[in-house]
């Protein structure tokens, strides 16, 4: 049956902010869904609180609601928009949970709205462990022996039968949140206790351990005529015990015979039928005992998942797009395969290459977090690479991570070190594979490593082959053509060969080019070349025949931003995608280079051509060469993908590549503190006093000159990595000792820290003549909190018109001084009525999508056009920019950061400290938009953290430095009718200012003589509705930390700055007086 014509409008539920376990893959899937629906003439209504998504661009839906994804808000939208159907299977667990909420509230029934894709019963059958177990058994499969528990007593009873180690899995959480492996009772109590709290149904599953088994995942699709296909098989290199999201994974499965694979396939098909996923995709995970092949079905996701995005990129089969078409009535055989054009989607892709995905972690951001990898996902991003062999794909994927520790190296490893590596690799951590490689380099055998890790011997042998090749490369003598070819075909980078040969990377490259050894580019075509491919989705390989087609239209190469990490995420992909869209419209061919499988930029539909390649100088230079052979290339855009492409600009230019937009010299001018200081001085602009130190002595001298506190950080970093505020010589000394090994080539910056300053973020465009000010955002948290972690508001609230004018002038001066062509982001601080320039980045910033949503001006598109020569005047005339003036915010928009505290534990099992600082730790953001600050802030808090209390008890604990600014909001809470609890110091201060409160005991004071509970006990007993706790300086002070972690673990809102405290007063005051309003972006921007 073709299109179901009774569906005239569909509400698509997005996945909200980027969090660990739910990242921009759902922007990719949601964007595809919106496109498909609109192409069918269906009215699309979208809800997503994440402004950094492509899907929330007003042109992707008819009505876009950037609102908190709660059943209450969605019900309001349904009442207003009256959609025929709701599509919730493409927005991750968030959307699925929202859909269940709508069903349970009776909203769907009340408004006569159909849930398409999967119905609530099917979702339950797939996600409820007991029901799912029954299904597995019914279709002849086996589940791990297990027991469902709802209380700690049940848990303790169950473990007697299951024995340790035992796996704990909470129900209805995403990314394995709250799950883990317990080896003893203490661990079990801690993990299962958290699991009960995280599960919305207070339900956890305890099961027999299958750690060390082989792990597989199959991506399955079904249409309403019961046609079922397997899109992809994925094998985890890391055996069972490590969450799939944290595992190195390989597609297709490498170590199964057909007989064994078909068993998994049969089970998958029977399960999807029995669960009753009517249409769409799901994935099913299996464990296989490596000694006898016993198969255990682990779980299924009855929706499009992170693995679906990976499978789509790995195969060229766009799961989300097809799932959407199936949801509106089509069958698989009615849908064309985009890539071949002649064959249908009712087939199973076959790969003639190997895909490797590697996770990217951020443990360095959470110094006290337990680095062990478990069944709770901890990675923040991933890189994927494609090669014609596993080793080629693996080596490419490792260099795609942009971490030097991840890239295989071959130093001298002693026998003692080897033995210690064999020991440490038993516990999976971020760099286990590198430990494996080094141990084998030192002579550890496949069997020894297998014993330690249970990584399949086939993979271990591949690592051994790489090491054997490294040994050959390192031998003295000529670097022959044959040797070089073999090394390249195995995935060795020029840089790895250079290190092994003791020469420079440039020399290797020159030698290689001299011998005419260059990669060819093959096509991802879903069918192993059986049919002609029409979609230029390429990957490099060292082989005979290239498939790059010649072209005549001038092309622009856009470099993406690589794997998501804290500080460089979806916001940069957003800008790259915009550039591609607008340049295509302007008549250029666009060529995207990126290695992040989660993104919209790596959708083969986004650009004219896609190169799925690592973003290293070598790999990019080869793409530029190949495309220059294919037709005219205008140049490369490096300013939109964040620090990754920016870091390549100078190297590309040195190799004769044209950089479009702001030149590498200008970039350097802005990033190099000395040169930038000169510009500011020339233009008469103030910066906080600063100095650059390359030694400890220098640093101390500068700090004394400037006066403590000072802000110290290594230069050339994104996301405030390694940035600290230090208050004395000892702390400074400690920082220098640690910082010097972060970026050895660059000095340490020492800045005066402006206490209590208001921080301003500006995004602007400059074309060499004219400035367009996109937006002036005011941070809600004061200076000292990383801008990426600070909530901010647009338009700014406390900045005067005079100050705004001053900011505009300063922005223009800097843009002109640096000689920007495109976007520039500047951070200012206003302290004591003086404007200071904190830093300038001549590139797209993290806030570009937020500003664009709030003002309706597509800044990234304009920047891309400026970099190919358009002027702001021309863009105004064209209508891409407003005809006159700067960007004007419609309503009040608040951006709030989302932090991953609940993902991490210290090795002792307790939570990591939930405190903001100059180092960025947030993974994502949300936006709240409304007519007033209070409401917008309330929306942002609900979207980011869940509901704010309208009444109840608030606990307040203020550091001495914050007591003054904390009085007003404390008074506010008192006026709003909240009962206030405070620890002694704060309580005395509050009472002195006429605020009534109850004194409670600090954690360190212990339970009182009469059994008075400490604040942590009170939080744990659920009597507190909101926690205000501002940290004392830097570092973990035991009391504050215990309070904050207790709040985080119980999901109680926890505010750690007085500015946030004040904003919460506005928000709660709004919530008490009126319901939240809804309004689509299209209405706001009309």
């Amino acid at each position, binding site marked *: 049956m073709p299109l179901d014509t009774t569906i005239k409008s569909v509400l698509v539920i997005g996945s909200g902010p980027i969090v660990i376990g739910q990242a921009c893959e759902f922007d990719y899937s949601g964007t595809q869904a919106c496109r498909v629906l609109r192409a069918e003439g269906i009215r699309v209504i979208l809800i997503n609180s994440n402004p950094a998504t492509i899907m929330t661009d007003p042109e992707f839906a008819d009505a876009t609601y950037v609102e908190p994804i709660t059943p209450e808000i969605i019900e309001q939208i349904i009442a207003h928009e009256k959609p025929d159907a709701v599509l919730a299977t493409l927005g991750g667990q968030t959307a699925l949970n929202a859909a269940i909420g709508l069903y349970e509230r009776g909203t769907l029934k009340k408004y006569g709205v159909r849930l398409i894709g999967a119905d609530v019963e099917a979702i339950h059958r797939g996600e409820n462990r007991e029901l799912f177990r029954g299904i597995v058994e019914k279709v002849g499969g086996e589940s791990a022996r297990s027991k469902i528990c709802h209380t700690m007593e049940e848990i303790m009873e169950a473990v007697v039968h299951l024995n340790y180690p035992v796996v704990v899995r909470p129900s209805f959480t995403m990314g394995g949140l709250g799950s883990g492996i317990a080896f003893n009772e203490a661990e079990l109590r801690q993990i299962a206790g958290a699991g009960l709290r995280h599960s919305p149904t207070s339900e956890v599953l305890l099961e027999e351990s299958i750690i060390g088994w082989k792990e597989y995942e199959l991506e399955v699709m079904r249409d309403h005529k019961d046609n079922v296909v397997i899109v992809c098989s994925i094998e985890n290199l890391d055996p069972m015990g490590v969450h799939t999201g944290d595992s190195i994974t390989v597609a297709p499965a490498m170590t199964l015979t057909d007989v064994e694979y078909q068993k998994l396939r049969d089970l998958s098909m029977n399960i999807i039928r029995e669960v009753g996923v009517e249409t769409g995709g799901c994935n099913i995970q299996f464990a296989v005992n490596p000694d006898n092949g016993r198969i255990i079905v682990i779980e299924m996701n009855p929706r499009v998942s992170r693995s679906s995005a990976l499978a789509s990129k790995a195969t060229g089969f766009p799961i989300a797009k097809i799932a959407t078409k199936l949801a509106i009535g089509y069958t698989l*055989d009615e849908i064309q395969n985009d890539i071949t054009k002649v064959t249908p989607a009712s087939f199973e892709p076959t790969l003639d*290459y190997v895909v490797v995905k590697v996770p990217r972690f951020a443990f360095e951001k959470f110094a006290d977090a337990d680095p062990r990898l478990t069944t709770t996902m901890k990675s923040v991003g991933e890189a994927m690479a494609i090669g014609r062999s596993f080793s080629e794909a693996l080596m490419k994927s490792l260099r795609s991570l942009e971490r030097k520790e991840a890239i295989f190296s071959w130093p001298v490893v002693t026998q003692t070190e080897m033995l210690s590596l064999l020991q440490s690799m038993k516990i999976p951590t971020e760099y286990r594979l590198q430990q494996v490689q080094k141990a084998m380099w030192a002579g550890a055998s496949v069997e020894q490593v297998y014993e330690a890790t249970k990584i399949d011997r086939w993979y271990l*042998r591949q690592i051994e082959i790489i090491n054997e090749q490294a040994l050959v490369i390192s031998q003295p003598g000529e670097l022959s053509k044959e040797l070089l070819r073999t090394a390249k075909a195995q995935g060795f980078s020029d840089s790895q060969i250079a290190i092994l040969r003791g020469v420079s990377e440039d020399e290797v490259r020159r030698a290689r080019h001299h011998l005419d050894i260059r990669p060819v580019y*093959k096509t991802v075509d879903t069918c192993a070349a059986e049919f002609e491919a029409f979609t230029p989705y390429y990957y490099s390989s060292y*082989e005979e025949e290239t498939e790059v087609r010649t072209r005549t239209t001038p092309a622009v190469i856009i470099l993406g931003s690589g794997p998501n990490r804290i500080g460089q995420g979806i916001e940069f992909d957003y800008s790259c995608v915009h550039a591609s869209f607008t340049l295509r419209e302007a008549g250029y061919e666009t060529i995207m280079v990126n290695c992040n499988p989660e993104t919209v930029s790596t959708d083969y539909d986004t650009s004219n051509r896609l190169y799925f390649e690592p973003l290293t100088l070598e790999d990019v230079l080869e793409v530029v060469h190949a495309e220059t052979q294919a037709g005219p290339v205008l140049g490369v855009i490096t300013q939109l993908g964040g620090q990754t492409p920016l870091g390549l600009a100078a190297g590309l230019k040195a190799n004769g590549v044209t950089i479009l937009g702001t030149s590498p010299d200008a970039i350097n001018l802005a990033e190099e503190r000395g040169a930038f200081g000169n510009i500011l001085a020339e233009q008469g602009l103030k910066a906080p006093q600063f100095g650059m130190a390359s030694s400890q002595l220098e640093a101390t001298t500068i700090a004394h000159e400037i006066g403590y506190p000072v802000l110290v950080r290594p230069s050339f970093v994104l996301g405030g990595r390694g940035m600290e505020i230090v208050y004395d010589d000892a702390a400074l000394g400690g920082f220098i000792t640690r910082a010097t090994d972060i970026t050895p080539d660059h000095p340490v910056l020492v800045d005066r820290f402006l206490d209590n300053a208001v921080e301003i973020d500006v995004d602007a465009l400059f074309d060499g003549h004219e400035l367009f000010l996109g937006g002036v955002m005011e941070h809600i948290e004061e200076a000292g909190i990383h801008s990426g972690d600070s909530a901010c508001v647009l338009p700014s609230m406390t900045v005067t018109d005079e100050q705004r004018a001053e900011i505009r002038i300063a922005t223009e001066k800097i843009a002109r001084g640096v000689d920007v062509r495109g976007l520039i982001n500047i951070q200012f601080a206003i302290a004591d009525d003086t404007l200071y320039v904190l830093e300038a980045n001549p590139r797209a910033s993290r806030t570009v999508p937020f500003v664009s949503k709030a003002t309706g001006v597509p800044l990234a598109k304009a920047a891309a056009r400026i970099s190919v020569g358009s002027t702001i005047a021309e863009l105004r005339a064209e209508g891409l920019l407003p005809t006159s003036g700067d960007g004007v915010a419609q309503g009040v928009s608040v951006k709030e950061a989302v932090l991953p505290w609940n993902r991490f534990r210290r090795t002792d099992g307790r939570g990591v400290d939930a405190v903001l600082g100059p180092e960025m730790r947030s993974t994502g953001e949300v936006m709240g938009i409304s007519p007033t600050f209070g409401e917008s802030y309330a929306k942002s808090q609900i979207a980011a953290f869940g509901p704010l209390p309208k009444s109840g008890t608030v606990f307040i604990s203020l550091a001495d430095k914050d007591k003054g600014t904390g009085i007003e909001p404390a008074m506010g809470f008192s006026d709003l009718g909240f009962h206030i609890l405070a620890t002694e110091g704060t309580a005395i201060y509050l009472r002195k200012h006429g605020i009534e409160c109850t004194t409670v005991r600090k954690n360190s004071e212990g339970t009182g003589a009469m059994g008075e509970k400490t604040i942590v006990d009170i939080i744990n007993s659920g009597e507190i509705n909101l926690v205000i706790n501002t940290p004392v300086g830097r570092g973990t002070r035991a009391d504050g930390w215990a309070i904050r972690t207790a709040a985080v673990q119980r999901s109680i809102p926890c505010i750690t700055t007085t500015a946030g405290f004040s904003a919460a007063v506005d928000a709660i005051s709004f919530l008490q007086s009126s319901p939240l309003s809804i309004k689509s972006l299209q209405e706001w921007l009309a």
Partner: protein
Amino acid sequence: MASAYLVLDDGRIFEGFSWAATGKTFGEAVFQTGMTGYQETLTDPSYHKQVVVMTAPHIGNTGVNETDNESAKIWVAGFVVRNPSSVTSNWRAQNDLEAELISQGIVGIQGVDTRAITRHLRDRGAMRVGIFSGLELTREEMVVEVRKTEAMTGSYLVRDVSTPTTVVIPAIGTKKFTIAAIDLGIKGATPRALAERGVEVHVMPFNSSYAEIMAINPDGVFLSNGPGDPSTMTDVIDVVRELLVAEVPLFGICFGHQILGRALGFETYKLQFGHRGINQPVMDKNTGKVEITAHNHGFAVKAPIDAEFATVFGRGEVTHTCLNDGVVEGLQLLDRPAFSVQYHPEAAAGPHDAAYLFDRFVDLMSKKVNA
């Protein structure tokens, strides 16, 4: 590593490294797109006289074992892979793939751009090929040798692959039916699938006469897969016509399907590059459902797809077509108990979606018995 050459009929030469047995070998170059199942492919008699190019880049990872063989030996004439495995990793493995190939004298080549070869064959069609390793021959000499070999069109190969004497595979559980399976190159999985359904399978030589077949008093006759050009199979086609006249329930797959097609009076023709893989979508025209199926055929039946057709044996119809290219994938007679499919319901390697066809055959025999 010693050099080896893959030399195509049209003069294109790919240079790689010697692998498996050294020497030279010739056949028809075909590509196989399955990502699993190399062992089943190697031992499938339908690949007799074919040099198989595997599009999956890593081959041999799981070694070989006795249970996954589809026949008693490896049939491919030569084996072309990108990255052979230097290690075997599977709990069922009993031997390394390369060791197995060497022990059976199969010449291989590795390290070639298998995707480039596949694209070449896709665009130019399946063609004669030779693999040469460890030989002192010029490029010209190699091409000349390749061109001296026989082409697949017109090849009569069934004699090489068929059983010399009848072999009986007992039914599993209660025996319900007895059938004659005409061995044109039968795979082990087919009698297995039938035996599981209570069918005793007499695997009979390809040149069994009508009388010999009827002598076992079969409830049905099965026509197996096999190598070669179906147009050369006149004797078997005559036997099939006699079986049709006698209204013996008949089921053919692959080569057997082509033979049924010819027995009904249809032409067979050679496809540009054939269907060889385990991901081919086939639509059952009667149910509208799609099954993902295993294919291995270079020839196909030319029959009218859109409407019923008339034959000397009564009305018939095309039941299945390939959704990729519209090729006829299934036939059935409406007035007599006979049907066939071009693909492999026995899978091995491949998906089990089409296993229902064996049930259909059993149903056909039940109806006949009950009638």
